């Protein structure tokens, strides 16, 4: 009995072009498995961004629209309003979502656009060479903060999932990680819930993924996963910060 196969939503023969050990691959696979599971392949439109997340349309066999830097939410808004019957999600990195595109993302959440936002938080600008991003942890060394990020000059990192949860138009906001099997399974469940809430048309749904960037962190993939566990999760706690469908509400 075959218990694992490549999801049908992945393009035939597609090979991920991410760096070795990059968590983007796991997240794209989870995404493809859910699109298969919920049978959304024919009705999905994705707005991709700039950064490592840009390659999504090379791997997924769905309709994608390429957005200018940070404007994925603006394009997703247009797509969803023109075609409300479609399933729309954005796939962005933390620099795209929370720095350049913070206005679009935040106002999209405030308007309660019925789309899903996916933000991959790896605490750095991966594609351009590891510069300091909005989510860079305090003390983390990057190419533009060689002495480490300190608050006097650079301020504090943004906690995106909590900020989005504060917006009244948000129906669901959560943070997950993919550093271990347990977290991968949990991430898939949370993302499925976000998709289902969008399909019910209840409001904006958002999932932040804690991911690794072994190349720019200058670590092996397993060391990078240890960093997620020991440094990132204490700073960016996992969990569901808002869920309007929760029963105990």
């Amino acid at each position, binding site marked *: *009995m*075959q*218990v*694992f196969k490549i999801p049908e939503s992945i393009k035939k023969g597609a*090979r*991920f072009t991410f760096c*070795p050990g990059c968590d983007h*691959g796991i997240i794209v696979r989870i995404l493809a498995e859910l699109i298969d599971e919920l049978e959304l392949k024919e009705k999905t439109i994705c707005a991709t961004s700039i950064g490592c997340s840009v390659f999504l349309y090379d791997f997924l066999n769905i309709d994608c629209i390429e957005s200018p830097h940070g404007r994925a939410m603006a394009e997703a808004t247009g797509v969803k309003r023109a075609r409300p019957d479609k399933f729309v999600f954005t796939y962005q990195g933390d620099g795209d979502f929370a720095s350049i595109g913070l206005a679009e993302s935040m106002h999209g959440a405030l308007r309660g656009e019925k789309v899903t936002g996916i933000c991959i938080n790896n605490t750095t600008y991966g594609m351009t060479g590891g510069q300091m991003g909005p989510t860079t942890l305090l003390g983390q060394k990057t190419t533009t903060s060689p002495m480490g990020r300190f608050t006097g000059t650079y301020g504090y990192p943004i906690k995106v999932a909590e900020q989005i949860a504060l917006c009244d138009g948000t129906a669901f906001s959560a943070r997950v990680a993919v550093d271990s099997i347990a977290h991968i399974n949990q991430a898939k469940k949370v993302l499925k819930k976000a998709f289902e809430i969008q399909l019910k048309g209840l409001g904006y749904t958002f999932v932040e993924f804690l991911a690794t960037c072994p190349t720019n962190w200058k670590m092996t*993939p397993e060391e990078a996963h240890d960093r997620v566990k020991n440094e990132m999760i204490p700073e960016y706690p996992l969990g569901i910060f808002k869920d309007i469908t929760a029963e105990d509400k």
Partner: protein
Amino acid sequence: MAHIVIDENRCKSCYICLNTCPKGLIKKSQKTSKLGDYLVEFVDPKKECVGCALCAARCPDMAIVEVHK
């Protein structure tokens, strides 16, 4: 019979699977990729694999393309 299939064209030698297999059935191979990195191979002479698919769940490049139970 439980086994996995590794696609060598997809494997980028990140070696996450080496630590993931609870029985240590995935090992570094002597074969190299186009870039010169050692690939991984599935070695299961005692038929210990139970098809748990943990390796496939953690592989970031979908290089473990099939898992059979």
